[in-house]
């Protein structure tokens, strides 16, 4: 009985921190199946776990459906791959640790043709559109999209402090409430968007961010420092 009580109280404190090169797999029900050697496996619950992203061959061509995206994919050209790879190599070291499971190529974002890219954080998937290759700031776009993945791996105390500093609040019956002044207009869409935009400005125009919100600037410095040392 005591052991049960101990386990019950311990459970909430168990953490499952996936590494930047891993994907989190949720708890799932595995149906009964027969192995190739003929042995039968009963149906069971598989606990949540982390799965390593294997290899670096993340450029995927068209041909499969991606949960969360309804556009059509197309094949990569060698020059497009080379450009993306060279820009990924230029990213800050702590962001480069976040391995991408797949990068896909599509003509345009179904809801906004001006969007250069689209990210699915849970599967660590990035989709790049024609607008990306016409952009003058491709490195900034990649940094922004990776920020949408990295945010979910940040230290909760640091991230909470960042949102307090940027002015986000949460009230009954409402979505998270953005601050009245944001650094880029679409930051008010969501806390994740605000983080990605602020990080983008931190690298592309640090002077602007320092003037706009010196506290957020120093919190981002702390976040990056702690990630670099990990």
């Amino acid at each position, binding site marked *: 009985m005591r052991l049960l009580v101990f386990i019950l*109280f311990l459970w*909430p*404190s*168990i*953490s*499952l*921190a*996936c590494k930047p090169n891993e*994907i*989190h797999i*949720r*708890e799932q029900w595995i149906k009964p199946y027969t192995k190739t050697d003929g042995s039968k496996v009963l149906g069971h619950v598989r606990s*949540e776990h982390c799965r390593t992203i294997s290899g670096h061959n993340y450029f995927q061509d068209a041909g499969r459906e991606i*949960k*969360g*995206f309804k556009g059509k994919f197309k094949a990569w050209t060698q020059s497009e791959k080379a450009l993306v790879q060279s820009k990924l190599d230029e990213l800050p070291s702590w962001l480069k640790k976040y391995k991408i499971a797949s990068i896909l190529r599509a003509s345009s*974002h*179904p*809801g*906004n043709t001006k*969007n*250069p*890219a*689209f*990210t*699915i*954080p*849970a599967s660590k998937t990035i989709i790049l559109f024609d607008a990306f290759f016409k952009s003058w700031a491709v490195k900034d776009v990649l940094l*922004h*999209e990776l920020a*949408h993945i990295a945010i*979910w*791996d940040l230290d*909760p*105390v640091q*991230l*909470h*402090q960042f*949102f*307090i500093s940027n*002015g986000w*609040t*949460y*009230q*009954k*019956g409402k*979505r*998270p409430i953005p601050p*009245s002044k944001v650094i880029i207009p*679409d930051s008010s*869409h*969501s*806390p*994740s*968007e605000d983080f990605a935009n602020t990080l983008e400005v931190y690298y592309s125009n640090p002077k602007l961010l320092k003037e706009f919100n010196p506290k957020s600037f120093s919190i981002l410095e702390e976040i990056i420092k702690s990630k670099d040392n990990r």
Partner: protein
Amino acid sequence: MRLLHICFFLFVACAQIQSESDQLDDIDKVLLVMKTKTTAELVKFFGEPDEISLSDDNKKMKIYRYKKSRVDAYVYGKNRNKISHLTIFFFKDFDNYTYLKKRFEKFKWLEKKLPDNKSGDVASDKYLVEIPERGMQFEYDNHTPKRKVMWIYFE
């Protein structure tokens, strides 16, 4: 000898009380605080706040902020002893949705799909969860790793 026995009994009793208090996590503590909604109870469980700031909505409330436990308690400006509501920045390193669903499975769970941002650059499949019996509300997103919950609102 009798005194020694009494001392030993008191020591064991205090240790028992201490260990039970230690076993409470931040959500347990918040739920206990929100039973009375008093700052006295808040300080009893979380200690003195790291910072007290004014809320943005016409500075009507004071926010008692706790950095490490990520608790922000909104206290009435006129009645400093009373808490209006409280948020905790949850963001734990496991599947937050599954954890909360199991933890509060005994209570009525109201879940509503939130509209997607169809022009945004991130996939989203967000839901608003309300657990009225516990005065709780939070959002989660199926397209994020571990479905991490940012703020949980308590009233």
